């Protein structure tokens, strides 16, 4: 089959957008969380910077930083949470704190805080606040207060917020996928049923599909399928009727042709003419036989078989009658035809006319191909539960590669004789309609066994 299965496609198209949306949502949540964390950190940094700035008292010579132990405690609140600060005036001259803190990339107006990231040497978040130092007449009255805090705790916070949102979301996704999968399965069940019905049927079964409680879409499909099956059935019936009618129509002119050639053969004395007439006669006989076989074949179609009379068939009697009927013809062909009833009293359920036809075809084949002087035996026996009807000959036998092929239509074992190549195909059709099988086996030391295996009544 071409393309992905419907089940897989539905699953893909339902789950793929969900996963994409989930990823987008998770990313968005992370961004939001990290912004909130940034804001929190920035606010506390600014608070610390302002607090520090408040402790700076301008003096005549410059300024004085009154950093009481309590304030220092605030700055070093958490040993894990590293905090740095720097007070400089003018902005490039460090007066207090850590000289490693870099200045902001762009100077900000007085009183406006600038937030930025720096690496000293670990990643840190820095706030820089430029203030006007109160003392008049001072050389440079700008004071810069910088406070920095390690970024690690902030990242940790953001990560935790992400985890808190992503985890429940993931569980939700998993549960939903399961639900979708189950839903698709349930929804596609009528289709699977339809598939199973179509796959399970014989090639020639044309009865309508039956679905229990199918949804309208699948019901419509099944309906369309049934309509098609009905049409095929109808055209098959037409074809069958045509073959049957044509065969009937052909019989009379063929009988005329055959009789006329027989008469001509009686009168003809010229050997060359006789030879030609014999060919015409042979061809007429073969055509007549083909027509008869076509009729039988039309009769072996399932419907035709079902319409015929089924009864308990006495195999002993069938074998004896058919063989007795064929003895004169076998003798004329130089064959010794006999019957061997190994297990008497076998019966099968079937259409006697058709079973007779099958056996006739096997004997006809044996007489035709075993050759002059051959011994042909029709043997009836029981094998387990089955009934075996064998036609065994001690002729040249059949090449192994031809044995299976011989049951196909229009395959002939030899170019000689009047065989039309339908005989064994008919035999197979007939026994299969009876729930049995037909096969060709080699006989010892040479020859062929044509075996019909039929289920017992």
């Amino acid at each position, binding site marked *: 089959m071409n393309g992905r299965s419907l089940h897989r496609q539905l699953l893909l198209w339902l789950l793929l957008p969900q996963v994409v949306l989930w990823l987008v949502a998770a990313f968005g949540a992370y961004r939001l969380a990290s912004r909130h964390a940034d804001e929190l950190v920035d606010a506390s940094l600014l608070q610390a910077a302002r607090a520090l700035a408040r402790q700076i008292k301008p003096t005549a010579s410059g300024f004085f930083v009154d950093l009481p132990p309590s304030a220092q405690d605030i700055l070093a609140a958490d040993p894990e949470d590293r905090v740095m600060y720097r007070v400089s005036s003018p902005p490039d001259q460090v007066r207090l704190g850590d000289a490693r803190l870099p200045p902001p990339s762009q100077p900000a107006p007085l009183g406006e805080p600038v937030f930025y990231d720096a690496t000293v040497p670990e990643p840190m978040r820095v706030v820089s606040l430029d203030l006007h130092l109160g003392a008049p007449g001072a050389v440079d009255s700008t004071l810069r207060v910088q406070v920095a805090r390690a970024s690690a705790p902030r990242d940790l916070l953001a990560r935790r917020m992400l985890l808190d949102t992503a985890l429940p979301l993931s569980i939700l996704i998993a549960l939903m996928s399961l639900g979708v999968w189950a839903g698709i399965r349930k929804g596609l069940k009528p289709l699977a049923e339809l598939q199973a019905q179509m796959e399970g049927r014989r090639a020639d079964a044309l009865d309508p599909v039956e679905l229990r409680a199918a949804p309208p879409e699948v019901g419509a499909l099944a309906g369309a399928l049934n309509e098609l099956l009905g049409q095929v059935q109808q055209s098959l019936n037409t074809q069958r009727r045509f073959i049957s009618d044509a065969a009937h129509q052909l019989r009379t002119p063929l*009988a005329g042709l055959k009789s006329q050639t027989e008469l001509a053969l009686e009168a003809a004395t010229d050997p060359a003419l006789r030879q030609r007439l014999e060919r015409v006669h042979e061809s007429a006989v073969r055509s007549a036989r083909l027509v008869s076989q076509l009729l039988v074949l039309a009769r072996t179609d399932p419907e035709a078989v079902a319409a015929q009379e089924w009864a308990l068939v006495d195999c002993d009697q069938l074998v004896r009658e058919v063989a007795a009927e064929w003895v004169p013809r076998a003798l004329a062909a130089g064959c010794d035809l006999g019957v061997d009833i190994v297990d008497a009293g076998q019966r099968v359920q079937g259409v006697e006319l058709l079973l007779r036809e099958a056996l006739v075809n096997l004997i006809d084949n044996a007489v035709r191909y075993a050759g002059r002087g051959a011994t042909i035996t029709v043997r009836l026996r029981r094998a387990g539960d089955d009934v075996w009807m064998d036609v065994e000959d001690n002729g040249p036998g059949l090449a192994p590669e031809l044995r299976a092929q011989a049951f196909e239509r229009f395959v002939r074992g030899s170019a000689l004789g009047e065989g039309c190549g339908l005989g064994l195909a008919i035999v197979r059709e007939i026994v299969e309609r009876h729930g049995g099988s037909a096969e060709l086996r080699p006989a010892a030391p040479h020859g062929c066994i044509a075996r019909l295996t039929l289920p017992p009544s």
Partner: protein
Amino acid sequence: MNLLLAEDDALLADALQQQLLNASFKVEWAENGAVAEYLLRKQDFDVAILDLGLPMVDGLTVLKRVREAGRTLPILVLTALDALEHRVTGLQAGADDYLTKPFDFPELEARLHALMRRGRPASQAQQLRKLTLDRAARRANIGGEPVELSPREWALLDLLVTERDHVVTKAQIVAAWGADEGGSIEVYIHRLRRKLEGSGLAVRTVRGLGYLLEATVQ
């Protein structure tokens, strides 16, 4: 022997007429059902061959009407149809035998003779190769030499000659004897074989089926 041939296919009718003529029948040909019915009602025939697919009046109707008119001559139905139900309908309508097209002429001839024999008492003398059977006197001779036959041997020979070239089953022999003595059949066959030596006829054993009287190759 007068024979009516009712067949609409000119080619087949022409050939059949000639073949029947060669087999010493006197043939009258009817090419449609109406003519066939008229001839069958007005003339006396020993036997008739009737095609079922005749124009104007179909064969089955002809058959019914002729039987209703009280004609009892043996009629062999010839047809291109062969399904079982057609066979049954044909025989129910009063046909004595049934043959599907195409057929072998020897078979048609044999059936015609069998039909006519059935209508006549089987008391005539019969010649087969060197064997002569006088059924009225229940006597047989080979090349003029009388053959001594016990009643069972006679019944056996009579049956084999009647069914010559066809298989005679043990059940048929037992039925002809009127007593269940199947075990001794082989003994009688053996005796009969010896008595038939030099007659140009031989009794062949057909494995699992029975016996068959055939002409020996000379």
